[in-house]
């Protein structure tokens, strides 16, 4: 399962197996979505598969995720999603009422995100060969002129902004999957980020890079940017917004909130001269009310993410290996 965890094992699989096999300059960008030019139009193109258990969780379902996940991957290129494809892989025996519920959620999420499901496919696998329902969505959207979001544009001095509280989706899933009670209901932050990104681009099209910190959490997103840009990244641990319930759940399980998945957050690297205005625009948007400056890109320690701890020490924030494992004590 580590190869699907969004950490070092996932990166290795892509770099050593998929990228050499597929070739292609576009794939080499290795972004959440690909930026391609077709018939004079600049398109963002992305695909993602959803295998979440359970299918329904506090704050959403696999149907919501299947839309928002792909819509957000496109948004990280600056694109507003226009069309989605939707492929269902159903396990023999899953009840049609469950399929209908997931479909209804998916349709509602698409309408909320302003994207149309334009094509689809259904396959059924034998009982025991799936977890009820798997969904794949692919999406396309137009990238506005003057927008060029990629990690290679990051320069020392860029300000790092996170759009809100981290760790909610991962903890919400854990609480239902493992039957754990954290004393407070934690709800997934699953949401479409296209509108928030448009609000940021309205301030300046000159944002440098955006990332959607899903699998592997904030730590994985920052490490990907640091590695691809060659810049060092410093974050101030005390400034990262971690909800109390997420902090408590992580303390109980011995997990680090920096590595817990999000589904409605973004992390942005913004030129210093635009940072205040972008932050104001984010805070004026419902999905960016808790937006916070958490750090900056630096010349030191190229490719590494370093946290300044609340006590004044420092530590490296590494890419997770596979999935985080709860600690014994």
């Amino acid at each position, binding site marked *: 399962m580590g190869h699907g965890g969004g950490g070092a094992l996932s990166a290795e699989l892509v770099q050593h197996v998929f990228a050499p096999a597929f070739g292609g300059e576009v794939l080499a960008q290795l972004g959440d979505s690909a930026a391609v030019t077709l018939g004079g139009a600049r398109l963002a193109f992305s695909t993602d598969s959803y295998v979440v258990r359970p299918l329904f969780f506090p704050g959403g379902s696999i149907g919501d995720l299947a839309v928002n996940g792909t819509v957000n991957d496109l948004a990280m290129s600056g694109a507003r999603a226009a069309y989605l494809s939707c492929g269902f892989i159903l396990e023999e025996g899953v009840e049609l009422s469950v399929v209908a519920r997931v479909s209804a959620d998916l349709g509602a999420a698409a309408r909320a995100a302003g994207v149309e499901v334009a094509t689809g496919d259904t396959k059924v696998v034998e009982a025991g060969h799936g977890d009820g329902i798997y969904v794949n969505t692919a999406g396309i959207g137009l990238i506005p002129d003057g927008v060029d979001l990629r990690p290679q544009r990051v320069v020392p001095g860029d300000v790092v902004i996170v759009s809100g509280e981290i760790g909610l989706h991962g903890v919400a899933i854990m609480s239902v999957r493992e039957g754990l009670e954290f004393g407070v209901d934690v709800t997934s932050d699953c949401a479409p980020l296209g509108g928030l990104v448009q609000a940021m681009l309205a301030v300046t099209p000159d944002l440098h890079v955006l990332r959607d910190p899903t699998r592997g959490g904030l730590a994985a997103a920052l490490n990907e940017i640091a590695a691809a840009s060659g810049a060092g990244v410093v974050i101030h641990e005390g400034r990262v917004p971690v909800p109390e319930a997420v902090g408590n759940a992580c303390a109980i399980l011995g997990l680090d909130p920096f590595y817990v998945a999000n589904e409605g957050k973004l992390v942005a690297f913004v030129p210093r001269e635009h940072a205040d205005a972008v932050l104001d625009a984010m805070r004026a948007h419902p999905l960016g009310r808790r937006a916070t400056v958490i750090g900056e890109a630096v010349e030191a320690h190229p490719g590494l993410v370093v946290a300044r701890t609340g006590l004044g020490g420092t*530590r490296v924030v590494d890419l997770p290996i596979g999935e985080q494992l709860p600690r014994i*004590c």
Partner: protein
Amino acid sequence: MKYIEEFQDPELARRLLDDIHATVTRPWALMEVCGGQTHTIIRHGIDQLLPDQVELIHGPGCPVCVTPLEVIDKALEIASRPDVIFCSFGDMLRVPGSGRDLFQVRSEGGDVRVVYSPLDALRIARQNPAREVVFFGIGFETTAPPNAMTVHQAKKLGIPNFSLLVSHVRVPPAIEAIMTSPSCRVQAFLAAGHVCSVMGMAEYPELAARHRVPIVVTGFEPLDILEGVRRAVRQLERGEHTVDNAYARAVRPEGNPAALAMLEDVFEVTDRAWRGIGVIPDSGWRLSARYRDYDAEHRFSVTDIATQEPAECRSGEVLQGLIKPHECEAFGTTCTPRTPLGATMVSSEGACAAYYLYRRLDLAPAARTAPLEASPVV
């Protein structure tokens, strides 16, 4: 859980640090026993903030790290059997045995499940009466009572398809072993607060007096660690060597009587091998004769498995505080969290993994990417 924030307060931390800086007049070497404390120290950068004269030596108190290789191999052997559901805490799944780990057993079709309590494993046993359910019972005095209670429950409820693979260890004999080692540099101990919350403090005064070392019972949040260090340094500077409880909000001198009674009923003290250190007399527990039927080693006939450690792994010296992780030639090159030679590189409570994950800025650059081996998807 507001109290956690209070125990990470930067202003209070600064005051404690100022006090330590003002108190210390010469070099002292303190050992924090517990891996959880090591994790806090490195994660929060506490070692960087202490005076240069105060050296923290990382002790053997990471339960994942000290579980012997042969016990991991026994776990792998049992977990590979088609009639077994093997249950474990999460961080044991990545610990390498001889050539593979429990994740690999799972990818090969073994039914290996992460649970959050041994009682979850007992529930799985009741739900699957046709299969054998084994729980991997490792750890110190902290995890032993719930494991004991689970076996007690299994016997009381007559659940025959549950058993425990036991590798429990005890802290005081390890302190004794460290102090009697000819190369010992430890001058004071930060004792593991959670262990003392179960066992109390009765075992420590004799150790402190005989070895003339301060022993400060210490918690796990940054301020707990700093307060433990502060009290230990004060004693050292004054030439004292008493047992001091700096974790009174969790530790009573008598410990937890109910937990102690459960341990007394289910387990008996035995010699136990510690990974990287060797056998320490009376340092472990095994199931007592009354509960021997629930011992997975006997049930699955794996008692004769014996294993050799990789020669280049120096985790034993790390666990005894004889070397720092980066002083091992394999650190960060042939041994990384991705390809660990020893358990100290596997668990984030292990000193080697903590140094690799959090301290690479201060150390020689390590190999960033390992070559892709002919390995399965995990």
